[in-house]
């Protein structure tokens, strides 16, 4: 791999969302562009290249992201109330989507300052379901 460092990478369109990519080894790839993201399929792996570098890396280490629904889901249960102190990994909200329960847990210790969803509500990804003020 490393000795191919300076080898040109040639990308030749094959039409219908396909490329031939050649960096010394020739392979077919597929791509699709949507909402600014470019999806690339290569050897069974899928990569999403965002348009700008502003998009957070996936992985859910971000506190705000941890308090959002990962996908459209129904709120089954809210286990905490406003003003409550929670510790790390406290179960805050149970969501349900595609027949599975998805627990939303506290990323860190803190105090619940606002709850922004109701039980039974269909919530969308990217919107915080509650707010936590983290202590010192």
């Amino acid at each position: 791999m490393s000795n191919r460092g300076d080898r040109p990478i040639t990308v030749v369109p094959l039409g219908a969302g396909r490329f031939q990519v050649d960096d010394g080894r020739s392979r077919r790839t597929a791509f699709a562009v949507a909402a600014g993201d470019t999806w690339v399929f290569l050897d069974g792996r899928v990569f999403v290249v965002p348009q700008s570098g502003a998009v957070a890396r996936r992985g859910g280490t971000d506190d705000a992201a941890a308090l959002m629904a990962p996908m459209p889901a129904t709120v089954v249960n809210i286990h905490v109330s406003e003003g409550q102190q929670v510790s790390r990994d406290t179960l805050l909200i149970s969501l349900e989507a595609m027949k599975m329960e998805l627990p939303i847990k506290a990323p860190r210790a803190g105090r619940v300052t606002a709850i922004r969803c109701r039980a039974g509500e269909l919530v969308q990804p990217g919107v915080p379901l509650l707010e936590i003020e983290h202590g010192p």
Partner: protein
Amino acid sequence: MFQRLLIANRGEIAVRIIRACREMGIESVAVYSDADRAALHVTLADRAVRIGPPPSAESYLSINAIIEAARSSGAQAVHPGYGFLSENQDLASACAAAGLTFVGPPPEVIAQMGSKIVARRLAEQAGVPVVPGETPADQSDAAIVAAATRIGFPVLIKPSEGGGGIGMKEVYDAAALVDAIAQARREATAAFGDGTLYVERLIGAPRHVEFQVLSDHHGHVTHVFERECSIQRRHQKVIEETPSTAVTPALRARMGAAAVAVAKAAGYRNAGTVEFLVDGSGDKAGFYFLEMNTRLQVEHPVTEQVAGIDLVRAQLLVAAGEPLPWTQEQLDQRGHAIEARIYAEDPITHLPQAGPVLLYREPSMPGVRVDSGIIEGAEVSVHYDPLLAKLIAWGEHREIARRRAIVALRAFPILGIRTNIPMLIELLEHPRFVAGTLDTRLMDTEGSALAGKLAGEPPPEVQAVAVAARSTDGQNSVETTRSGIDPWTSLGSVRV
């Protein structure tokens, strides 16, 4: 034979049944919710009937809507597929009351096998061993805790009605029990409309091996060998194969006889599956009756490939009153088949995914079959099961099938929603899968190591492809290098 058959299901299994109907000259009637108006099964069927809004409870789980659709479309029979109402005796009864043939066992057989207590008693009476467990008559938390203590930890809490791994919780000590009970009860109520829970002893590192059975209305009961379904995550099967690497000819003969004994004792008709837990391997391995699934299984294609039969066709023949199209002596296993289930889920976090399918291209190569319910341009809905497609690879022996499955998955682009394909490839390449030393805990113990392999940086070709896709709208060739002026660093971070 029926002239017209209604398929009370969606997705890949509805498509599978429509194809069998077409081969047999039977007109197919699809049903759909508003979320599935343009779904593949709707466009493929000879006709299609709307049965309600997107939530399953108001569409695919509505017995009234299904029966009314069958009546209005002039269907003579109803195939329930798997999941949804397939193991609901009320649908089978409602079909009978409406003069429709239900493609499956009689309602009383569904009822008795659906009750884990009755099914276990029946297996025991047929001389087949069972795993210790019970459905507490008193379903209070305290009574369930008492039952778990009686049975002995670790235990498995699961809905008394239902299957598919939904609502199943493994509990290793009393402290975790109350939360598990509450969650299992909620999931069971949501999925099956019944929160009754069953508690059983959890057997450490077992294999999940099941036997396909098929019986007709003329007294013939046959089995079509085993399927190994040990590669599971949260009791949801991920990879299945046949033959099982744990099953020797002598063990196969014992288990096959046990499966047939259970089917006979139940008065079983049509296709069903007898599930066993296998403890150890080889001629002397122990096995326990787990449950009987009174329907076609998701993983039926591996049996079809190795036995050279069509199970859906056989189901329809039997339902129409014809004798089984084979005898036990005519059945044989040839080669090896592996099925990989392609789910709309993140391969690392396992979270289900919903969204548009921007690009979907099935691989086509010798020995590979794809059973799918989606097409390019489709929308994967939040309302239903995340199973998109199944890739089945056959080969003269296991290693050929395994390599074929990997090559085919590497040539199966699905873009727009994340799928578990990268995880499936890692699983198929895992040394324990290669060696065939499987147990139902493999994904629990190896899962994070597998996910770690998927978390690496993307290769530079990916960035080159992204640049080409964006800068030229995919119409022109691009040549670039990794060093020097780097045209794609401006893209910033790449999410893998």
